[in-house]
């Protein structure tokens, strides 16, 4: 099983595909779930406090706006944990979007420069392209090592573990 970082970082379709092929999607939703279910924090709606943009300083300097650093406080640990990545270029908003293109630029740069296998693929606009899009992703996922898990059939049923998402 490989931990696969995805772009857009909240794409449910990509996350589902990755799980179906026995790997672990690293998605921002798990990070947010951990935030909003943590006790002792009261900063709704996402429980992101002024401390988070400070944690984001690990990925971006102080002159980078707090919205980027706050997002990177969630996304950065996923990139650190990533063993592979799929980047979908030009996706429509309903495919996934974290809202800030400066964050997008930074996260794509960081995952590309990490040296892990990265599949970069354009979002399909036609049916034929869609088949090709899925095939390429499947091919990429099949090429990733699975030995750590060893029981692929259970992965699709398994709830993603928060502890495995790179924290």
């Amino acid at each position, binding site marked *: 099983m490989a931990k696969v970082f995805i772009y857009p970082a909240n794409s449910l379709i990509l996350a589902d595909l990755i799980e179906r092929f026995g790997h672990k999607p690293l998605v921002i939703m798990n990070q947010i779930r951990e935030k909003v279910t943590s006790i002792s924090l009261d900063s709704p709606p996402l429980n992101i406090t002024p401390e*988070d943009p400070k944690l984001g300083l690990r990925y971006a300097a102080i002159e980078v*706006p707090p919205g980027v650093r706050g997002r990177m406080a969630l996304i950065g640990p996923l990139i650190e944990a990533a063993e592979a990545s799929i980047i979908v270029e030009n996706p429509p908003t309903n495919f996934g979007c*974290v809202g*800030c293109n400066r964050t997008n630029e930074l996260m794509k740069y960081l995952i590309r420069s990490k040296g892990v296998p990265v599949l970069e693929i354009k979002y399909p606009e036609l049916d034929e392209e869609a088949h090709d899009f899925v095939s390429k992703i499947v091919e990429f996922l099949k090429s990733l090592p699975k030995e750590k898990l060893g029981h692929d059939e259970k992965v699709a049923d398994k709830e993603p573990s928060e502890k495995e998402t790179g924290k």
Partner: protein
Amino acid sequence: MSSEELKPVKIALVSCGSEYSGVQPEFESAADKVNAKFVYPEIDIAYMDTISRDFGLEVASGDLRLMMARAKAVVEGTTNVDGVFITTCFRCAEGAIVRNEVRRYIHKNSSVPVISYSFTERTSAGTLLTRLEALTTIVRHKHLLTREIQSGLTAGIDSGSTTTKAVVMKDNEIIGKGWVPTTKVIESAEEAYSLALKEAGVSIEEIQALGTTGYGRFLVGNHFKAQLIQEEITVNSKGAVYLANRQKGSATVIDIGGMDNKAISVEDGIPGMFTMGGICAGASGRFFEMISKRLGVDITDFGAMAVKGMQENVFMNSYCIVFGIQSLVNSLAKGASPEDVAAAACYSVVEQIYEQQLQEVDVKEPLILVGGSSLIEGVPKALTKLLKLNVLVPKNSHLIGAVGAALLASGFVDE
């Protein structure tokens, strides 16, 4: 509390994702204090992919496209709100472009009051309070703001960061004034108020209604049991157009205060767009105090000195008060005349206001300059030169907050 006060004001929060920046609780806290509630205009997610073309501004960030879509929802009436708060991250160019254009778009196409702000993770509820208070006042008390004549015997106290001003007014005339440096907030207010009462020849018991404004408005207002406790944006807009006798039509008010500046676009005496702040004290009245102290002249003589000088002879950029003072020291060391330095200081402050604040409001004539710094003659001169507009400095321009408060408080006399 009136029924108007009890009803929450619905403010559309149009932001680039403030929930990711750690400031959302501060926004909510400031809104709570003025009994306002943030709402998020609903839009169809598919609209996000076409909004750039519809709006005409192509941006890459999804949340900025969401801002445009939400602004359209407000203008088209699919979301019913009382006001709009537009906010993006400080230092984001893409965000700043969208923030300004969305603000202009709403202002041009609807009558919904709008404020905009760029936040950092250190933005506090206190910073936002005055802005949200002004926004909710425009919504709740429009009838109060339409008052053009002071009636009865009323008083106003402006508890500012640097000076405290008080006036007593009777039947539309100022009959007593007090102006003292702010040291302890209540003691300074008592002193200024006593001076105004003494000059007016009336006792505190005779005052029919009192209004307070400025940084110390709550403390002073509660101390004197004021009928009106109101932020400076509303009060100063009203005071400025009243003193300048420009209550009808458009006007732009620039208030250079001791600690911050305000630029307010006013229509029929009611504030529309406004900005508050300044990056550093280098763009406020505090800078004049420091420069005059360094030049060894009294602040009251500083303006006349500046008028005699040539600003072009001295390079000064008071973007930061420390660098501004360095420029001053360097200039004097090179032999610059104190007059040229004083002129450069005036020009530098108005340049900061132009660069940081006037970009965010529509400047419409007349331009009314108020606040203590308006009495420094070099300031209106520099502003006229920079903006190439006639600058109006009304009589008693330094008392604008106190006059505005006394004027608005007279609404309580009738009640």
